[in-house]
């Protein structure tokens, strides 16, 4: 049997169970149709298989991971010595900063996304201005509003701080050389190796989804009815799963849901339109010489990405895993709570959408109960935020 056939069989089984009225148990308060079940099962399984990143030769390397951990929490990679990656990606805040828009050396235009599960992205940042995790990790160091370094300053710091230089040797098998660009890229790759280890865990939704696949009534019953009703809106009338697809609840692409995108009065955040221009011209993209993927097999999307007018004002569809822990929302943090997000979709201002654009989006006109159900569902996508513990290897000084 093919995987799809197995899935279908399981779905049918689950439906049979969920649909048989049985007064003695309340698993059936919310029953799903076969179509709904198929759509729900498509949001798993979780977690996905861990794969190395072929564009990063130290992906999965234990020394690189420990090195990246060090660098991530160190403020010396910033121009004023005060800003680390962890300032905006705080472990205790699900690797975000809780701000609407992040503030590094000066205020920026965008909300800091979590770096958990970032290894699964095809495009990085709200605008997809990078196509790989190490390039995305270089960006904040060189961005004048975030950490404000030059490539020369990053490379000098790596050469001069003994622990950094020692770890560099250990990870890359040679001392940090005089080629600044090369050192910077390697720093990005160590940072990426560390971030690849940040993976979100199983959630109440995953337990429910797998129970549905197994036809496990008792486990199905444990998932709250409000969440079940919200899930039905998510895969049904709301068409949320058209963009928030698959196990990560994102298709990884860019859309316009009618959020204003002025960065400041008189200044616009071009979103994906700017991202495409940047990723194409970036010396750190997967087509460039710094990718370790000799076959350039990972570069297909970058090679074919095409600039279109609709990309102006599009932003990446965010993953919804742990979404309840990462307020505020949207590329600019302009939406405060999940209830507000749901209200946005419920009352959607169609005037902001091009007639030929996102045809899937219509104001849903949800009742207050339905809105609460949808929020209840989104809240089941959390893994309980396990506490981050520094690794032994990351803690000890390198000698």
């Amino acid at each position, binding site marked *: 049997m093919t995987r799809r056939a197995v899935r279908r069989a399981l779905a049918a089984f689950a439906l049979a169970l969920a649909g048989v009225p049985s007064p003695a148990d309340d698993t059936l308060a919310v029953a799903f149709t076969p179509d709904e079940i198929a759509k729900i099962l498509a949001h798993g399984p979780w977690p996905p298989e861990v794969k190395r990143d072929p564009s990063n030769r130290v992906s999965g390397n234990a020394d690189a991971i420990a090195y990246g951990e060090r660098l991530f929490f160190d403020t010396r990679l910033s121009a004023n010595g005060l800003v680390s990656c962890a300032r905006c990606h705080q472990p205790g805040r699900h690797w975000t900063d809780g701000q609407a828009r992040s503030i590094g050396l000066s205020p920026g235009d965008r909300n800091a996304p979590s770096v958990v599960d970032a290894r699964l992205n095809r495009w990085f940042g709200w605008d997809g201005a990078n196509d790989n995790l190490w390039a995305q990790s270089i960006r904040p160091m060189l961005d004048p509003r975030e950490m404000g370094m030059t490539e020369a300053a990053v490379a000098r710091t790596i050469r001069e701080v003994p622990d950094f230089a020692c770890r560099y040797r250990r990870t890359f098998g040679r001392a940090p050389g005089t080629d600044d660009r090369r050192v910077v890229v390697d720093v990005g790759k160590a940072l990426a190796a560390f971030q690849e280890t940040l993976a979100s865990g199983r959630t109440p939704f995953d337990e429910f989804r797998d129970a549905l696949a197994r036809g496990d009534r008792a486990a199905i019953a444990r998932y709250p009815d409000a969440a079940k009703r919200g899930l039905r809106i998510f895969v049904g009338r709301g068409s949320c799963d058209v963009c928030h697809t698959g196990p990560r609840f994102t298709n990884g692409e860019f859309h316009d849901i009618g959020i204003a995108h002025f960065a400041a*009065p008189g200044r616009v955040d071009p979103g994906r339109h700017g991202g495409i221009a940047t990723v194409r011209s970036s010396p750190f993209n997967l087509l460039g010489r710094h990718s370790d993927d000799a076959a350039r097999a990972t570069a297909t999307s970058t090679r074919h990405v095409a600039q279109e007018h*609709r990309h102006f004002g599009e932003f990446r569809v965010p993953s919804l895993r742990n979404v309840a822990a990462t307020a505020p929302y949207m590329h600019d943090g302009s939406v405060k709570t999940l209830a507000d997000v749901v209200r946005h979709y419920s009352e959607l201002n169609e005037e902001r959408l091009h007639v030929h654009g996102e045809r899937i989006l219509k104001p849903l006109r949800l009742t207050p109960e339905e809105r609460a159900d949808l929020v209840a569902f989104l809240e089941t996508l959390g893994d309980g935020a396990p506490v981050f513990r520094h690794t032994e290897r990351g803690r000890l000084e390198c000698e």
Partner: protein
Amino acid sequence: MVPRHARLLVASALAMSPLAATAADLPVFDAHVHYSHDAVEVLPPADAIAVLRKAGLKRALVSSSGDDGTQKLVALAPDLILPSLRPYRTRADVSTWVRDETLVPWLEERLAKSRYVAIGEFHVYGADADLPNPRRVVELAKKHRLVLHAHSDVDAIERLFRHDPRARVLWAHSGFERPDEVRAMLRRHRNLWCDLAFRSEHGSDGKVDPAWRSLFTEFPDRFMVGTDSYTPERWHYVVEHANWSRAWLADLPKDLAERIAWRNGEALFGAAPAR
């Protein structure tokens, strides 16, 4: 040498704030500009005109829900703005105007008060084009000698021409149809012009697609470009769009490029606006 990362920054800055056009640049007739109340709020009329001038536009065909935005621009820059009367009082009329009995009196009142070169851009599809309101709009266009700017499918365009075979129609976004379908329509209707707003595939990356090239060559007098500023933010795309248009137009013979860039718009709407 400029450090590499600095060049990167320059590249992204360019993407965000495109360079102003210079006198040497190809003039552009932008056939698809909207300036509705929300845009007026964030981008006052004088600033809006400045954007259009920065883009190096020779003229802009402007329509706005409520019409006030258009009138404000005309008052400031009559040389630049060609006013079109949009049959919407608010943008919510998009899907209801065809059946709204209060609409036509409002249009008549507007037409009596101000001068226009077109009615549109309006949205009408299929058999809805036979409803009384679209029919009245065609009549009004005939009476006032206005061009119809229609965001429509093939079926609705055919019906508009049935109401008035001598109507002049500017087909917004060329109906989002493929080149073959557009060609068939242009062969059938001598009074059909096409705007290319909000489409990218004909001139992606400064290269003209072969199917479109042959269409442009067959009908050099019928195409024009347009930005479609349907949100206030899109006003910040007008300059970028003009430059983008110049890039693909440069891939065509000079005469053809000039026609699509501005001569066709000038020819259709006339150097001096109607009435």
